[in-house]
């Protein structure tokens, strides 16, 4: 059969889709929500820092709700929308952000601090000397020194960030070794900066435990993909939403929307073995800038309720909403704030519509 029915189907697990899903769950009170996504959101590459809200107010409910979401998911953000800070990167640059997951935020530039940039022997994808040398040239008021630790190898092989993260998640002895190694380095510094390896699933509690053992703040720097910090954020948000009763179908692309008489009846999903169809009362399309092919006849514009319009200015479907970079190119990665606000708005619009519908 392969047919299921939902009140809302959200397509895409970037920050727009995740924010839309979370908002829908909170706003609808028991609606059946599905989240269908082919891959991970692009926020994963940069670990989810928010730098730009696209002009909306700092106290926008979307931001408040998002911070409540990440808190509940165990991956709290720190920062202040009114004030930009600089985070060091593995390329030895400084990235301006307002909000970021705590483990990244810990590394923000604070004048007068001494920071150890800690490399791991056998992890070639990160070079502490390179990072420290470049950061020191930026004269940001911090002093960076490259240090190096040794962690036990598996079968004598070089390390990868995923291997280290998985061991951090699963092996208490590994966490202890890591903490001891970092503590030895930390004695001389205000903060230790490490490549992001602190678990794909770890929560704020485990981070705090590590910091207590190390004796100073531990800050992660996102690596080139796979970025463990980004994967963690994605994993924990998806797990949290699943815990909230959302049906999540990961790894499957939506191949078409079923639109009939200006009404979106559902989505077709390519799952292995057989195609599936999810019937939906409303659909939010947040699947990124490369999914415009799902919207034949779309002019590129949308109405005030985020519904895509055709060339005559009519909505393609009265219950189909857009969020994220598909609707707002500025919300592409780097425009995480806009994605959060857009996802939030699309979910509210979807349920407003459903409420209207119910009263008729």
């Amino acid at each position: 059969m392969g047919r299921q029915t939902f009140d809302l189907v959200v397509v895409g697990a970037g920050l727009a889709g995740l924010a839309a899903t979370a908002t829908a769950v909170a706003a609808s009170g028991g609606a059946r929500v599905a989240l269908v996504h082919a891959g991970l959101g692009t926020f994963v590459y940069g670990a989810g820092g928010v730098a730009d809200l696209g002009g909306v107010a700092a106290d926008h409910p979307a931001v408040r709700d998002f911070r409540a979401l990440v808190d509940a998911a165990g991956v709290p953000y720190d920062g202040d929308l009114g004030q930009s800070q600089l985070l060091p990167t593995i390329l030895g640059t400084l990235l301006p952000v307002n909000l970021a997951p705590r483990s990244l935020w810990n590394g923000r530039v604070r004048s007068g601090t001494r920071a150890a940039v800690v490399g791991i022997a056998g992890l070639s994808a990160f070079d502490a000397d390179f990072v420290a040398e470049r950061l020191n040239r930026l004269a940001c008021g911090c002093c960076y020194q490259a240090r190096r630790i040794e962690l036990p190898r598996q079968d004598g092989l070089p390390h990868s960030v995923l291997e280290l993260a998985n061991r951090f998640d699963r092996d208490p002895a590994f966490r202890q070794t890591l903490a001891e190694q970092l503590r030895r380095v930390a004695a001389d510094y205000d903060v230790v900066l490490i490549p992001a390896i602190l678990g794909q699933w770890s929560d704020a509690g485990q981070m705090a435990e590590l910091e207590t053992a190390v004796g100073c703040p531990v800050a992660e720097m996102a690596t080139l993909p796979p970025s463990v910090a980004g994967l963690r954020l994605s994993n924990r948000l998806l797990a949290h939403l699943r815990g909230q009763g959302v049906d999540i179908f990961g790894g499957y692309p939506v191949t078409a929307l079923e639109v009939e008489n200006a009404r979106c009846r559902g989505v077709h999903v390519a799952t292995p073995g057989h195609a599936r169809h999810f019937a939906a009362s409303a659909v939010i399309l947040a699947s990124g800038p490369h999914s415009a092919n799902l919207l034949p006849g779309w002019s590129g514009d949308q109405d005030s309720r985020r519904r895509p319009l055709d060339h005559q200015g009519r909505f393609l479907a009265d219950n189909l909403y857009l969020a994220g970079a598909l609707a707002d190119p500025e919300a592409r990665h780097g425009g995480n704030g806009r994605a959060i606000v857009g996802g939030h708005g699309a979910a509210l619009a979807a349920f407003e519509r459903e409420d209207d519908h119910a009263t008729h």
Partner: protein
Amino acid sequence: MDRTQVVIIGGGATGAGILWDLSLRGIAAVLLEKRDLANGATGRCHGLLHSGARYAVKDAEAARECLRENRILKTIAPHCIHDVGGLFVRYPQDDPAFFTAWDRACADIGLPTAPLSAAEALDLEPNLPSGILGASTCPDAHVDVFQLTLSNLQAAVARGGRFRAYAEVTAIERRGGQVTGVRFRDTLSGDEDSIDCEMVVNAGGGWAQQVAALAGLHVPVRCDKGSLLVLNHNLVTRVVNRCRKPGDADILVPAGPVCILGTSSITVSGPEGLRAETDEIEALLKLGTELVPCMAESRVLRIFSGVRPLYVPQGADKAGGREISRGFALLDHGVEDNLDGFVSIVGGKLTTYRLMAEKTCDLVASRLGVDEPCRTAETPLRPPTPEAVTRKIRHLLPAQAASIVERRLGPAMAQLAERIEADPDMAEILCECEQVTRAEVAMVMAVDAKVPVRTINDVGRRCRLGFGSCQGTFCGYRAMLEGYRQGLWPAEAAAADFKRYLDERWKGQAQIPNGKQLEQLMLSHDLFGPSHHFHSDGEG
């Protein structure tokens, strides 16, 4: 003041072949290249080792040359050649009169072909369209142009030849009617230098006209732009040619893990600043889809353009790009322009680079009074790999990496093994597509390498790092860090070069119309732009 007997200008296959040929004859020579090896037409072509079948109908002499050279290169440089064979496919929309002319022309020059029915051809190449009428086999092959150029240089350096990259010749010195040396500038550092010599060979390819102008001479070269598309799979496993009068986009070459479709043919004003136009790319893709229909859904990795440097003798300059001879010309400026010691080798094609080098060096040797014959046709470019070295590498590396690196390094795998045995971490793969290990990158970066590198792009031309679907987004970063660790460049220089590298890679993808590679490109832009605040498109 540096001295040598011969200065060669231009580090393409021809210049490298000349350096090797002269070195074998015991003639001291220095090759100066203004960028890096294979920067011009050599590195910007199909990598098709012609069998001659392409030229059989129109130019029997060129076809015979190709056939001879095809056989020679398969013997002396097997590690540079994937001997995949070729097909000439008969499409119903093409002129049947050409099919018969082609059969006759191939028979006339003794080119070995075998007819295949449509069913047989489809059995070999299922991605051909089902409506084809038939096909013929021919001994076409794929040649790794970077490996070929590099192997010539390495062989020459081992015999005392010298290669200098990023050395742009700024003046050709003469005393009376005799060349006496060249001045050149390091294009990365700006340092100036000079070399005294008895002869100068202009192997500038598309730049031959500019090089000749340095000596105050006119060498008429027409630059004919050809654009090519790199697709991310072997859509075909043999070289597929369309059996018709040569035209656009009628050759598809399986090249390692990818395949290359080309070309267009457009006269341009010079060899620099080449760019494929949008309609040109669309036209190539449309014709490519006639060749192999599934191309419509396949992923374009990269688009690049090169120029065929066509020699246009007096009176022939009205002909269009494909009408001018693919043959080459050796100009002895001592005879033609009263400038002794200056020689230009112009025109020609990759397949005949060795023959061009041979004829050039015959002339150079006779002018220098050296009585050594050419030995490049029977001397392997690389000694065989000792069995023990191959065995050792198979123990140290995964099977796929071991077999790929064997082609690239051959006997030099002994040094690779030494590095990995000294530090097992060096066995890590930095470029997954081309299976390049840290140890190999370190070898390529070594200061005592026969053909040293100065940029990340140079590393790619030595070991193919960054040629796959990530287009250097990941492995380019890793190579930058490896260079930093090896002391090749300090952090700031490393970062600056990596930005240039990204620009170059992004440029090659900028006109990709749609699909997965566009997403890959956006990923690259996003990673280094918003995510890491490192580099954005359009930044200096």
